[in-house]
């Protein structure tokens, strides 16, 4: 008897797990059915890819809030995962580009450059790229741009007051010994954003002055973060007074819940947030619709609402929050190609500095 009971309980577990499989499966099937019916009834021209599911690898904080609008307007469903571009590139290399993902959304442009060279990206010159400055996008159309991400610092007001620190106004200010141990920045070899600050300031200040600056700031930094988002988080938690960071809608979001303020310094390094279609995508046509939508005036406005950034499309006004503190003229003159090609030598030299 007792044996039977135990067997039954074991069976129950198995059945339960298989029921779950079944549940998951049925759902998918039902969805597909609905979709099929939908295409027949509705105007085919408007939503030619209704029901297609696009897989998106996202490295663009807050972007998911815009997916619903896209699906509503185009009928294309989105499945997405948030993954750093470095990790995605590793994954791509491991599977030799045979990814099931269709779209790469945001993140570090250097990974896109790499992926393009490895042949993982699909060439697509969206007609909407006409509204985007050439320096933001790949000249051959392997990747486009969604937004411009300006970089500055985030300060913890309470800590600044408590420690009696001055609010820095220039990058040079950060080398002042009063900030010793209170500055956090990400490791540029890990964070594409931090590398952009690095490379940008080197280009802007000139090699010699630039390196002198980085050497000086290293003396004030005890801790190098392991991701681009970490300095903002740690400053908001009050772990550090000042963090070097990208300033996006998320940064302003932090300011709503923590005593922090984003600040732009005398010059503003930036990087574009790119977008690309994977060469292995099985839904390239739908993917093109996706790219077109997201770089169009309309899509860009919705994406801006999801996460306030300076959009790549010049027809879209910068968000009010940012516009209030950012003087667009301060954006540095930045050569992205040079940034990409100098990466190895720059990081090697940097490793020497922090190694000391």
């Amino acid at each position, binding site marked *: 008897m007792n044996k039977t009971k135990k067997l039954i309980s074991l069976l129950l577990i198995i059945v339960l797990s298989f029921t*779950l499989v079944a*549940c998951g499966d049925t759902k998918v099937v039902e969805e597909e059915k609905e979709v099929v019916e939908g295409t027949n009834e509705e105007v085919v021209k408007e939503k030619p890819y209704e029901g297609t599911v696009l*897989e998106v690898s996202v490295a663009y904080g807050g972007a998911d809030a815009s997916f619903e609008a896209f699906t509503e307007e185009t009928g294309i469903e989105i499945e997405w*995962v948030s993954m750093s571009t470095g*990790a995605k590139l590793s994954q791509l290399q491991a599977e030799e580009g045979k*990814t099931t993902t269709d779209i790469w959304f945001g993140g570090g442009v250097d*990974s896109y450059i790499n992926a393009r060279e490895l042949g993982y990206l699909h060439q697509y010159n969206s007609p909407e790229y006409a509204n985007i400055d050439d320096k933001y996008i790949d000249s051959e159309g392997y990747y486009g741009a969604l937004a411009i991400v300006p970089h500055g610092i985030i300060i913890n007001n309470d800590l600044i007051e408590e420690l009696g620190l001055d609010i820095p106004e220039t990058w040079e200010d950060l080398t002042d010994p009063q900030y010793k141990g209170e500055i956090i920045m990400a490791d540029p070899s890990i*964070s594409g954003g931090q590398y952009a600050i690095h490379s940008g300031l080197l280009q802007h200040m000139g090699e010699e002055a630039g390196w002198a600056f980085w050497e000086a700031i290293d003396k004030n930094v005890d801790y*190098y973060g392991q991701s681009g988002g970490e300095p903002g988080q740690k400053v908001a938690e009050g772990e550090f007074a000042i963090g070097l960071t990208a300033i996006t809608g998320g940064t302003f979001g932090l300011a709503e819940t923590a005593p922090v303020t984003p600040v732009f310094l005398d010059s503003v390094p930036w990087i574009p947030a790119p977008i690309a279609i994977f060469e292995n995508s099985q839904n390239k046509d739908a993917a093109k619709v996706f790219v077109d939508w997201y770089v169009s005036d309309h899509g860009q406005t919705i994406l801006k609402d999801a996460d306030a950034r300076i959009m790549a499309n010049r027809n879209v006004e910068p968000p009010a929050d940012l516009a209030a503190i950012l003087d667009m003229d301060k954006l540095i003159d930045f050569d992205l190609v040079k940034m990409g090609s100098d990466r190895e030598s720059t990081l090697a030299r940097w490793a020497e500095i922090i190694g000391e």
Partner: protein
Amino acid sequence: MNRNISYSSLLEKAIIILLIIAFLLFILYPIAGLFVRSLTEGGQWSLFYYKDLFKEENIELIRNSVFVASLSSICATILALCIGLYAHFKGGRIRDLIYRGLMISMISPPFISSIGLLTLFGRRGLISYGLLGLTLNPYGWHGIVLLQSLGGIPLSAMFMMAGLNQIDSRLILASRDLGANPWQTLKNVILPSLIPTILSVLFLRFTMNISDFTTPVIIGGRFNVLATEAYLRVYAQANLNGAAAMTVLLLPPALVAFYFYNNNLQKTNTLSDRSKVLDVETLNYKLPRLVNFISGTITLVFFIIMVVQYGNIFIQAISRNVSGKLVFTTDHLHFFQDRHLDALLRTIHMALIAALLSTLFGVMLSYYNRMRRIPGMKSIEFIGSLPYIIPGIFFGLAYIVVFHNGPIKMTGTLIILIVNCTFRHVSVGNKAANATFENIDKKLEWASYDLGASKLQSLVTLIFPMLRPTFLTSFINAFTACMTTVGPLMLLVSPKNLIISVLMFSEVSNGRYGQAAVMGLSLILITFTVNLIAMALMTREKRITR
């Protein structure tokens, strides 16, 4: 009759062959594939990624790794020993309570603990700064040691309790009878008898710690270790081959530690005759006062930290921090319900299947190796322990490398997650079954054959029922592990097969603690429920066999 038996033995041969193929295909092949990849550069065989392996910075990294892993392993072992001693000799309900507490604290994924502890003990932590006015700098090797030690305690303490339980309590009586006081008895009998357990805990911790990259990433600061460096090569620099090469450096210390762990685990089970073990309740042995005080305090502090940590997760899940004030909200819950419920169901589904399969494979492997001594199974068992030893992220990568095309194309599916989890945790069930088989008389099986049962029938009707408690415990452990694993799955997920633990890691890294906390809570609740059910089954089992 004869035909029946030969059919059955044929079936068994098929099962054995399938078992071997499964282990070769899903463990050895991917790992080999990854290393072969790391030995190529631009399509050519090359030692490119290995030539710089022994440069000074890496030697430094090895030194750091070994230093931190040793220190945190020693700390965790000592603390776990204290908790184990305290719980064991308190006995009764306190012991059960501590055991259950340890089980629950095992559920929480390590990076969630890190964040909890940072909010409590960070430079501006609620306790360190808010309460005590201290500005602690947790970043650095001491932070890693603290977190790894704390994280290692639950499982280690449970090992210690099991080890203590195995000591023939008459030895303790004999020692006192021969004039040794409690302290001398502890020093001369209890601790020496526990040495195999202590060593295996120590080596297991070392293996785990040296390949742990999440803790050093979160709290290491400028202090780098090998595992983190390897992880960053994958995650940030997309230097897959270089990272694989770096794991080669991680392997020797891990293998050595694992070898000792394995050796000692076996000794634990052969030490003494268990037939005449007295209940602690009737043993009338109390720990020496000082030891009792110290270990009691450690136990209390550990559980306070756990309570605060779990409380923190709970509060994070139902509140929002607005300008330094907590405001309660159900937003996170609603958001979770809308967005991630599918992923949660998928995760449960994956973990249930993987835990079942992994337990089954582990037990079968143990059976064919330990009971039947089928040649070659010993090597298969070693292969089975590999995924446990190598850093998780590489086991994930290895799967991508070999299963992204060809006849077994699995990338982007839920199956790849299930298979990966199954084999990653297969040694859990394997080890547990090994321990049980040590105590099962092999003649029982002969008796069964003698009574006319085929080998397969004996396995199903005799061995499996005897192993039921083992099945349940390893199922719980494997399930918990599958629900909370991130490392190997991090790169295996695609938009269509997202699972909660990976989602949670990405929410944490994006700073959305509220969402992460809800996910953490859901994981904890589900794992806890499954544990409770399994434990209920187990206690019923005990009652019946008594």
